[in-house]
């Protein structure tokens, strides 16, 4: 049925609300002015230049990128075997384990962040690389397990059985037949885990310190205290990284296909 004018109008209002902030961040990041005002008094790249000159923020950007790479690797390394087992093998407690491995997503990140602070601070692991890697893994591993379970489930079991008949061991068949066929899923899972860690703010806020901080936390603190377009340039950097990762995966495997199969 064709939508009436009221429905169209309401939908446009909805889209405006959804997209306005990102559009404004884009425009303001090129502002030549000193404040987050609209319309900007002129356009320039001065705030991007200021961002590159800001040592603290550049360190945080490097930290976030390294952390996200490490977290995505950990999530794939521990998530793939688990996903293979859940998708392919019969063993006692399979359903319970499958539920357990995605359980951290059910907890509000605020509560998870607090719990991690209480556990990591006494162990002197707060604001350290291992501490942040463990913390971010809690939101990345569930995604890796879920996406990889779908990916392994999508590979026909016959192929692996054919490899057995031809003399491959179960391990060889899994490694040489099923894993390569599930590679698009692994790329998508890795990219999603990278983004989840790269954008993670709330858990990090509990765990960072002067020694080690991440870009979203620095952006949060900046937005809390000051209102110049530097924070918009910073926000655009985060959006740019997210877009680049999504486009890269789209080029490699087709994001919508890889994620959308479940």
């Amino acid at each position, binding site marked *: 049925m064709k939508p009436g004018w009221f429905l169209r109008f309401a939908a446009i209002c*909805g889209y405006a609300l959804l997209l306005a902030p990102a559009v404004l961040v884009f425009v303001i990041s090129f502002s030549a002015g000193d404040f987050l005002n609209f319309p900007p008094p002129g356009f320039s790249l001065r705030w991007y230049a200021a961002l590159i000159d800001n040592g603290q923020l550049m360190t945080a950007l490097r930290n976030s990128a390294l952390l996200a790479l490490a977290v995505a690797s950990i999530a794939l390394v521990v998530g793939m075997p688990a996903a293979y087992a859940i998708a392919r093998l019969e063993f006692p407690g399979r359903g319970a384990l499958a539920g357990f491995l995605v359980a951290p997503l059910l907890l*509000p990140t605020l509560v998870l962040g607090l719990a991690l602070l209480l556990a990591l601070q006494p162990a002197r692991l707060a604001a350290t690389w291992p501490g942040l890697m463990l913390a971010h893994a809690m939101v990345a591993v569930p995604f890796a397990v879920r996406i990889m379970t779908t990916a392994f489930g999508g590979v026909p079991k016959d192929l692996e059985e054919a490899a057995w008949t031809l003399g491959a061991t179960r391990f060889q068949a899994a490694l040489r037949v099923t894993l390569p066929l599930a590679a698009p899923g692994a790329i998508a899972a890795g990219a999603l885990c990278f983004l989840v860690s790269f954008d993670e*703010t709330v858990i990090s806020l509990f765990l960072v310190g002067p020694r080690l901080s991440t870009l979203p936390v620095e952006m949060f603190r900046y937005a809390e205290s000051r209102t110049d377009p530097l924070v918009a340039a910073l926000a655009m950097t985060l959006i740019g990284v997210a877009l680049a990762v999504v486009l890269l995966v789209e080029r490699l495997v087709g994001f919508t296909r890889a994620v959308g199969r479940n």
Partner: protein
Amino acid sequence: MIGLLLCLPAALILAAGFVWPVLLLGRISFNRTNDMGAMEQAWTLETYARIVTDDFTWDLALNTITLSAGAAAAAVALALPVTLLIRSAPPRWRGLLALMAVAPLLVSGTARVVGWMAILGDQGMINAVLTGLGITSDPVRLINNLTGVRIGLTESLMPYCCLVLIAGMSRLDSRLEEAAATLGATRSRTFLRVTLPLAAPALAAAFALAFVLGVSAFITPRLMGGGRVFVVATEIFDLALETVDWPAASALAMLLLGTLIVAMVLRGVLSGRGAAR
């Protein structure tokens, strides 16, 4: 057995970073804070009693619930026309329209708040239009107060509502609406008597998800409230990191979790009864 072995690394990491911390959170909520503000090991309900008897807690709880219920309702109300538009669009547009509806999920919450500052601030877009048209001479305060949090929270919950509604309503048979139109129903009558009842379960699911996410939202209330809007989430954060009263932060977090669990169970019971009917 090999299956269990393959799950072991992931399970161990979750045990260290999820199970142990959450157990510790529960344990610490039974500790006490002494007069010096230091934590003492104990098994006591003192901290819970202190929180529950404090009127401020109830103000916070009421603020949090009304705020997130309002934002969730607004988010569902705006996500519904978006979903209906996607549903009625030609197939080749559907993917793009759906992507635009959930794209904000890829943009970090803080980045979107920065966008709202440029829209709602005293020198932002809306105030520029209002003063430019001569409607107001002084800027209208739209951010760093409850209004700002309401707007920001609604926007941040909308993509989730869209996801739930798109999934839930794709199963609806659009021929039923066409039949209603054929039988002479007006557009609004078809919507009220056919589309809305069919969409009700999806709308309820979207509201429930948005409400739960809204209750535990932290970034939007803290940044768009400008430190002047207090909800349970901001209080937990302040107790943990500003006051450093870990037992109180833990107890409040446990109460929040308990409330969310009760809300989910209640919703399960209600929707179960609805399905049985």
